[in-house]
């Protein structure tokens, strides 16, 4: 079994190395064949492992020792349980679909082999992240997926917007990693190990400790650790206010928006917090922070989504909002619900992105929905799959998103963690906007009158099978994945992988109220979230089909408010002014005032100048005229002779 575990991440790494280093030799066909084959191997192995895990097999062991220092040993190793096996399955499946899709999407791109190398490398990194049994390797994977994300956002490196976006993404993520690393350092300093098992076994002991940060104020150590770790999650999973990088990441090619910036990498933060449940469960303060941040993200980003016209950006904001739901669920101690939503979201958001990519291809790289419309008849398969994705995203039964999102809302309702009421209200309001932006996307793109120019219109056609096949294969779980709710959420599926303390009752309440898939759907039809989503959908229908002239009027009515939302609340401008600008001002100030003026100017060159001046002064005496030297000598002798009298005359000495 251990060989199989190794095979899962190493197969894509091999594919990446071959495609990356020998891309020229093996050609385009060779590159996609070898990477797809390796990811396929990885996927099949993940299925085998998943089945093994279902029948009770778990694994926790090291592969090799990375370093030893003092009394600690830091290792690279795997923890295979139901949580990691689920993630491995999702990652390899979506990755496989995206690999196939890429053949069609990147067909004419000169960087074809490089692209395949990157997405395989990403798959490797992501698998190392989820399979880790320790914080060190988690951080390895964490940073490695960040690197690949950086490379892929800037894939089209001649575009100024792309290379700005990738640097921004990397730096914002680094802010998160900064917190994450401090959290890891705190754990190592207080536990003496970075092994999950060792750390979790000492969680209760940690909970009793406190730490002084500012003055004499003491904090619960575990709260500080959890918040530090969560800052890492905020960066990677783009939670408010570190969300600013995700919309800009849409500068990358669409397949990676689906794979990295929707289905897998951005959910790493969610996965991490779920993995750390034994720690988070012991700090209600940290859970509250997680919940409130998630709720703010869920609502505020859904609102922005209704003002965007770039089809990919709409999906990006919808991703932000859905990540907010997952985060809020973590705060409510409903970890299984968060992971369940992560899973269903991976499928339906991948469909939405890949569908959007299919539309963009058909439209000759036009992304503005105002120039689309009526595409339904030209792209029937794309239309159908995107519709499924949108309905799942909006949370309509029987689609997958309904089950996972509804569970989250119910969990927030049932939670007693401080802030739960606020989070529940945000989540509900978010459902309305979710219905609105999801269907708005469908209506603006596929319905109504075609708004593109005649030339584009004459060339419209459905994408090739390599594009539509992944769409269909992803659309199926976008419908059906939700039906497994009974097993995943209420069958004690994650068993010991996730620990929930008895006083956090949200999941228990949900279990109590659950009476099967059909009953849940029927109950859903009478519940508030369904009607809110429906209201959103109907609003979208009215605004974009019945009265397409209205949105502009409404935008005009809400002038200021609309402008604020459309500009994403101004965070981009604020951050770039404050941090990017501020850092440069500080740097220039230190350089000019500190290094150049004070140290070099005053001290270094200053002392050199003093030496120069004194030398010049001394030189005046060295005239070379004998009579002057003789005169000076006589004067000196006289001075010495008269010294006692002079001293007396000036009144010093006696």
């Amino acid at each position: 079994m251990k060989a199989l575990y190794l095979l899962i991440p190493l197969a894509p790494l091999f594919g990446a190395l071959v495609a990356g280093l020998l891309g020229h030799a093996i050609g385009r066909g060779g590159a996609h064949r070898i990477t797809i084959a390796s990811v396929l191997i990885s996927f099949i192995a993940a299925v085998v492992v998943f089945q093994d895990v279902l029948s009770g097999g778990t694994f926790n062991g090291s592969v090799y020792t990375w370093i030893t220092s003092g009394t600690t040993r830091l290792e690279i190793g795997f923890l295979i349980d139901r949580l990691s096996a689920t993630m491995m399955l999702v990652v390899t499946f979506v990755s496989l679909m995206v690999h196939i899709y890429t053949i069609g999407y990147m067909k004419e791109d000169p960087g074809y082999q490089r692209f395949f190398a990157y997405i395989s490398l990403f798959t490797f990194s992501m698998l190392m992240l989820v399979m880790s049994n320790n914080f060190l390797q988690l951080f390895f994977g964490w940073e490695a997926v960040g690197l690949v994300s950086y490379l892929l956002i800037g894939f089209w490196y001649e575009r100024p917007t792309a290379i700005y976006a990738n640097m921004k993404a990397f730096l914002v993520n680094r802010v998160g990693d900064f917190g994450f690393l401090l959290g890891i350092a705190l754990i190592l300093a207080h536990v003496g190990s970075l092994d999950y098992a060792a750390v979790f076994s000492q969680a209760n002991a940690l909970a009793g400790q406190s730490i002084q940060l500012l003055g004499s104020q003491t904090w619960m150590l575990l709260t500080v650790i959890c918040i530090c770790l969560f800052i890492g999650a905020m960066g990677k999973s783009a939670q408010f206010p570190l969300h600013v990088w995700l919309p800009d990441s849409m500068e990358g090619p669409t397949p990676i928006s689906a794979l990295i910036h929707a289905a897998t990498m951005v959910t790493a933060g969610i996965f991490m917090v779920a993995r750390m449940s034994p720690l988070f469960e012991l700090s209600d303060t940290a859970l509250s922070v997680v919940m409130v941040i998630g709720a703010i993200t869920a609502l505020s980003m859904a609102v922005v989504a209704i003002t965007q016209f770039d089809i990919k950006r709409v999906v990006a904001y919808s991703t932000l909002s859905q990540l907010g739901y997952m985060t809020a669920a973590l705060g409510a101690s409903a970890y299984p619900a968060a992971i369940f939503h992560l899973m269903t979201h991976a499928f339906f958001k991948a469909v939405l992105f890949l569908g959007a990519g299919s539309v963009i291809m058909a439209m000759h790289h036009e992304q503005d929905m105002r120039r689309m419309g009526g595409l339904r008849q030209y792209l029937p398969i794309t239309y159908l799959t995107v519709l499924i994705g949108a309905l799942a995203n909006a949370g309509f039964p029987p689609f997958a998103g309904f089950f996972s999102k509804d569970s989250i809302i119910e969990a927030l309702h049932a939670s007693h963690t401080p802030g739960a009421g606020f989070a529940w209200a945000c989540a509900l309001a978010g459902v309305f906007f979710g219905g609105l932006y999801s269907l708005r996307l469908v209506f603006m793109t596929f319905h109504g009158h075609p708004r593109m120019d005649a030339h584009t219109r004459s060339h419209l056609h459905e994408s090739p099978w390599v594009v539509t096949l992944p769409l269909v294969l992803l659309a199926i779980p976008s419908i059906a994945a939700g039906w497994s709710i009974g097993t995943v959420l209420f069958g004690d599926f994650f068993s010991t992988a996730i620990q929930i303390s008895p006083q956090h009752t949200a999941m228990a309440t949900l279990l109590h109220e659950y009476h099967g898939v059909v009953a849940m759907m029927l109950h859903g039809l009478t519940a508030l979230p369904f009607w809110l989503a429906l209201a959103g959908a109907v609003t979208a229908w009215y605004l974009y089909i019945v009265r397409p002239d209205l949105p502009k009027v409404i935008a005009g009515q809400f002038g200021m408010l609309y402008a604020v939302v459309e500009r994403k609340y101004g965070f981009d401008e604020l951050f770039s002014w404050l941090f990017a600008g501020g850092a440069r001002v500080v740097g220039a100030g230190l350089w000019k005032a500190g290094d150049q003026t004070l140290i070099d100017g005053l001290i270094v060159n200053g002392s050199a100048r003093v030496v120069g001046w004194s030398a010049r002064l001394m030189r005046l005496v060295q005239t070379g005229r004998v009579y002057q030297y003789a005169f000076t000598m006589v004067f000196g002798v006289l001075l010495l002779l008269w010294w006692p009298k002079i001293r007396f005359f000036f009144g010093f000495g006696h």
Partner: protein
Amino acid sequence: MSSYPLLSLSIWTPIVAGLLVLATGDDRQALLARRLALLGALLGFVVTLPLYTGFDRASAAMQFVEQALWIPHFNVYYHLGVDGIAMPFILLNSFITVIVVLAGWTVIENRVALYFAAFLFLSGIMNGVFAAQDSLLFYVFFEATLIPMFIIVGVWGGPNRVYAALKFFLYTLMGSLFMLVALLYLYDHSGGSFAMADWKALPLGLEAQQWLFFAFLAAFAVKVPMWPVHTWLPDAHVEAPTGGSVVLAAIMLKLGAYGFLRFSLPVLPDASRNLAWLMIALSLVAVVYIGFVALVQLDMKKLIAYSSISHMGFVTLGFFIFNAYGVEGALIQMISHGFISAAMFLCVGVMYDRMHSRMIADYGGVVHRMPKFAAFMMLFSMANCGLPATSGFVGEFMVIMGAMQVSFWIAFLAASTLILGAAYTLWMYKRVIFGPIANDHVAALTDVNAREIVILSVLALAVLVLGVYPLPLSEIMHASVNELLRHVALSKF
């Protein structure tokens, strides 16, 4: 253990090779000089390999010891030996010498023999610094490094080379003089011994220790360099030829840091503990202040020079938090920085050879013409940001882990390099490599040739191997570092 005088071989092989290279005479024999230099450098590297294979990891004692009376009147010995702290640096130095010879292969066209001889001399002398067990011998080697470097910067340097060479020379000489006074005091105080081992056991009062600490600090802080005596480094780097920058960053800076471990910590443990707060503060200033300064540099070499200072801040920080993570992390950071800074300066050199400019503003879109080069530089830039799985991560990670055991806020400030380091490195990369082709000069660029690919590949491999599997390196250090930490914890009065 080998019966050959391995340490003497590692010192004198490059020096003798340097003499042979000099003997080839003027530039009509340039090719011969190059070949001889490469042979000498390779041989110099090969003779250091048994130091690694024959090293006893379980022992903290000096190994491969050689001892002979040198100046009987003053009781000075030609006394060599290495422990787990010194040995890796001899290998690193001899390795970098090969790289430097290859890097200067076609670039240097005038006074070729002198150029390569200077580097070979420098290599041998620096091995001497790491191997010396007699303080006066150490001092002689330590000071002798200035001469070849002064010549390298002064002869093959840029337009402002005289100012830079003088500044470098006087700055470091000033510091070293204080060290000489300290050495003489200790010689006198120990009853006439220059042996480092004797000084380690020498009882010393706190006040004397503190005076001596500052005297050593003057020498080593300038060399590292620590803030605020760092301003010679950017000037020296900017004016130095590529090879000079490589050796300066990869090895010479380490001499100062190494000095702390050989003198300040073992000979003056009480002063080291008492003044640790000062050293930590200066190190953190280096990390944060210099990180900001690096951000606004317009010249690539200056930027990398400032980045070096910031990274060396981690080294001094690691030493003075007195735990295994800190000291071992700092040592690994020194080795790793040897590879990464060398690679970064070589990358700038590759572009400079083609464009004759180091200014960031003169570049843009280099990737279109030099895709292979861009891939290499991406790897080294990421290593410079401390990305995991590169060697740059290991040292920083361990020092931050060690710092957290002392204080949250020390770790907090140190970890800020995660953001600052990424910001200045990637911003430079973006402006130089990415984007549309900036001008005709960039459009005319040609990608790296076979020689450059070999050099960069070897360094890339080193950076990756050390990042993925640092255990073999850290294992060498354990015994010596533990012994050092045990000793530092003891009081001497």
